[in-house]
């Protein structure tokens, strides 16, 4: 399995700076996962532009990413609602996960 996406599918990328105090901690991880699950596209995040990529719909895997405040969260999505998915995720991060 490469990471180039399926034929006909457009990969959409975005990134956002983690500015909330706790970073991608337990509760933000849950929120991110819940949001990602609303989209049909595959949604992944990483803490570097070139990965490794983590399935944003997996609460256990996202909890293990442990990104801290000041790190940049990279996101990418593949599928019909990829654009909406990455912008929603970036928006959640920019809103500090609605926690502050």
């Amino acid at each position, binding site marked *: 399995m490469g990471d180039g996406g399926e034929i006909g599918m457009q990969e959409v990328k975005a990134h956002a700076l983690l500015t909330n105090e706790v970073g991608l901690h337990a*509760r933000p991880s*849950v929120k991110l996962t*819940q949001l990602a*699950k609303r989209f049909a596209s595959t949604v992944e995040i990483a803490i570097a532009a070139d990965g490794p990529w983590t399935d944003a719909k997996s*609460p*256990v*895997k996202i909890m293990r990413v442990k990104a801290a405040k000041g790190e940049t969260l990279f996101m990418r999505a593949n599928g019909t609602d990829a654009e909406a998915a990455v912008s929603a995720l970036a928006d959640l991060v920019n809103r500090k996960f609605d926690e502050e």
Partner: protein
Amino acid sequence: MSEQKNVGIVIVSHSAKVAEGAADMVRQMVGDSVPLAAVGGNADGGLGTDVGAIMGAIDKAWSESGVAILVDLGGAETNSEMAVEMMPEERRERIVICNAPLVEGAVMAATEASGGSPLAAVRATAEELMGG
């Protein structure tokens, strides 16, 4: 998301306080979109688990999509198994006991359930915690 169809979560601990505390964490972190019940302590109010109380918790958290049970130590598991066996036959195959740590498993399972995932996926997510 149709909330009534989300898999339910049951927390079974030897301690009522542990069960309640774990349920509090699930509600605060995941929200109210998942049917949730917590039960702990024996019939005398001491530490232990009670088959009847576990059955009541399964009823309370019941969803047509099924129920995932998180347990702590030995007796919680065996009494949960007994409770499942005593449930109506048509419900039994929609009840699973997860091999996962109680608190973390409950939060992870509820997170998975809140996205509308089927019972097998909810269980797999909780059990993924044991995978290192």
